[in-house]
């Protein structure tokens, strides 16, 4: 190392190879592998010994055993006689449901508030700022408690609930609305919807090609909306609108029939949406502020109206800045939905890492499966994001 003298250094000691960066690198890596292997060995042997001592089975056989507990909300058929695997899928479905709805609501609210922060109206800008600073500086878990205990518990009891618009009831047991039921022709409507979606995809490709060749724009948004909504609606009406509503009726203690949306679900959804919206608002604001002023000036210089400049020049460029951190927030929202366990909404963590873990005692398998699910969601999303970023990146000379 210390090459003070100009002559080439002769290997003078058997220790010299240690100073070769390559050999050093190999030594460090071998040491790390050995340390990790030792750690893994210790963990595996200790865990095996501990499990044997506590008489806990291992392996994944428990998944096919009968669960024996009920779940208050399920999107797939589930009874207490179903298996643990079925309980797992119920929890996963509930997690995905609340995450998907939460993402939609948080995005809408976040964009509104983010644009409000930039509003030229002083009052709106200040109110939006107040929202962001209050909501993002209070823990989400506390906000969930506030929604669940302070807001939803303040609702009337089922017997005192007043009808909303004559049909729906909102009480401490949740939101009861009429359940729409299709009498016939469901598959026809589905085919019509799929055809509409296929046509939309084709139309988008065609319109882009036409714009690249001729420069003419096609009113894509409205025509796509028409194609997605139109065909199924038309088939539905042609079939004579075969729909009836099952009304919620007040039973002895609670409402029967109709559609009941659990208070736990509503609290979790509201908490996730309002909390995440405060972060999305900041992302939207900094994204729009991040578009250089010259772009807007150039757009008005070539004669675009204010709305056109916003829609064709500013927003497409702002989206490039907004989308990566926005996806991050979507992932955060999905992971945060695990807080459901604190208010008893049957999501993946609450059903699987909660009830199933307690019943079977197989902590290792259950926690690993749960973590693997979230990890898979995260990895899939970040793979999609890398692909998307590569596609959206500005192609420079």
């Amino acid at each position, binding site marked *: *190392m*210390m*090459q003070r003298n100009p002559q080439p250094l002769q290997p003078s000691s058997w220790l010299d190879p240690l100073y070769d960066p390559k050999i050093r*690198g190999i030594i*460090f*890596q071998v040491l*790390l*592998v050995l340390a*990790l292997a030792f750690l893994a060995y*210790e*963990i595996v042997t*200790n*865990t095996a*010994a*501990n*499990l044997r*001592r506590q008489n806990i089975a291992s392996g994944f056989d428990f998944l096919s055993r009968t669960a024996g507990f009920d779940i208050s909300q399920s999107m797939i058929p589930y009874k207490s006689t179903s298996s643990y695997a079925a309980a797992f899928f119920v929890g996963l479905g509930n997690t995905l449901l609340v995450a998907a709805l939460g993402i939609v609501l948080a995005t809408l609210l976040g964009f509104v508030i983010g644009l409000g922060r930039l*509003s*030229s*109206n*002083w*009052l*709106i800008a200040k*109110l939006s700022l107040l929202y962001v*600073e*209050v909501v993002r*500086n*209070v*823990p*989400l*878990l*506390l906000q969930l*408690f*506030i929604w669940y*205990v*302070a807001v939803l*518990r*303040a609702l009337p009891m089922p017997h005192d609930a007043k009808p909303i618009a004559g049909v729906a009831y909102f009480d401490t047991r949740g939101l009861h609305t009429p359940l729409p039921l299709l009498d016939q022709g469901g598959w026809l409507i589905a085919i019509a919807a799929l055809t509409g979606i296929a046509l939309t995809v084709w139309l988008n490709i065609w319109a882009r090609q036409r714009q690249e060749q001729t420069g003419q724009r096609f009113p894509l948004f409205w025509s796509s909306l028409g194609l997605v909504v139109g065909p199924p609606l038309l088939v539905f009406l042609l079939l004579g609108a075969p729909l009836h509503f099952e009304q919620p009726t007040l039973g002895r203690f609670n409402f029967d029939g109709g559609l009941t949306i659990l208070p736990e679900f509503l609290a979790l959804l509201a908490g996730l949406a309002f909390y995440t919206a405060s972060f999305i608002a900041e992302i939207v604001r900094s994204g729009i502020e991040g578009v*250089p002023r010259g772009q807007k000036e150039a757009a008005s210089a070539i004669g675009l109206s204010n709305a056109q400049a916003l829609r064709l020049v500013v927003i497409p460029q702002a989206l490039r800045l907004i989308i990566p951190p926005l996806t991050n927030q979507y992932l955060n929202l999905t*992971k*945060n939905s*695990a*807080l459901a*366990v*604190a208010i008893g909404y049957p999501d993946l*963590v609450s059903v699987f*890492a909660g009830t199933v*873990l307690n019943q079977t005692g197989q*902590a*290792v398998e259950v*926690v690993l499966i*749960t*973590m693997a699910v*979230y*990890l898979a*969601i*995260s*990895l899939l999303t970040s793979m999609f994001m890398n692909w998307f970023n590569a596609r959206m990146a500005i192609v420079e000379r």
Partner: protein
Amino acid sequence: MRAKPKTFAADPLRWTRDNLFSTWSNTALTLLGAALAAWILTAFLDWAIFSAVFTGSDGTACKVDGTGACWPFIWHKMGLFMYGRYPDAERWRVNLTYGLALAALVPLMIPRIPGKLWLSLYLLIAFPVIAYVLLRGGMLGLVGVPTELWGGLLVTLVVACVGIAASFPLGILLALGRRSELPVIRYASIGFIEIVRGVPLITVLFMASVMLPLFLPSDITIDKLLRALVGVALFSAAYLAETIRGGLQSIPRGQYEAADALGLSYAQKMGFIILPQALKLTIPGIVNSFIALFKDTSLVLIIGLFDLLGIVQQSVQSDPKWYAHSTATTGYFFAGLVFWLFCFGMSRYSAFLEQRLDTGNRN
């Protein structure tokens, strides 16, 4: 057209017209906003003052329907919320610990004051030992206070501070590992960081509380608080590593090359040249991580610890003397206010640092 007045004071009438009533749609928005603001303000004042209960030694007055805030609940439980079940006679030890921390933190946070290195060394090395001895006791003539008795804001602060302090060295190592040229070290770091960042904190806490005891030999039992600390530290290390990596990446390549040209070893290059610059750049990011961690500490209530939120939740749910809707609302409001003061204060501080560190290179 005359130039728009920048402030209300310069030309109140014009300012109002320009900023609130410039167009019809703007006027409509202003009215809508004013209505919303008025509604929120009156509802809050009614809850906090006009319908609120201010006196009483139990919750009888708060159990009446339609009462607003139940302030005596907060006065009555303040000690519990701040210290948990930490014995009354020993609470001076907690306050002394806070004082010893503040004595170093305040000068550390004011950029003008010199001696940052010594203050940081005191906070990172000497203070943890002193704090442990003071809080845990059982030596030097102090009565032992087992961690089961700790609670409230004390636990929140302990988890957040120990979490950030313990995750700091690990985060630096992981960030360096991720940028290492040695493939095994790089992939091990990437694997750890991405796995931890891909799962919710609550599963990491479950793992720490349920699986950690299984991983260790059966004759070792570890404290519940320590288990949570391990989980929180590992979790925040992964996030901190990414923040620090951002700082490392923003150091110009010339700095690395110059260090190599001087013949510095890897440790010298990182320790004397790269990390001092990178860490300074990442201070705002680190403060932001700390804010996130501070809010996340509330999750420890799910594995049965009583942090500030946990103890408020327990008090509003299971004390029959006070059980009422108004107490619950007041309790959550109080907890929210405390969390908000800490987080908002830190975020202002981070914004101030960002402004100071901004060298004006950005356009």
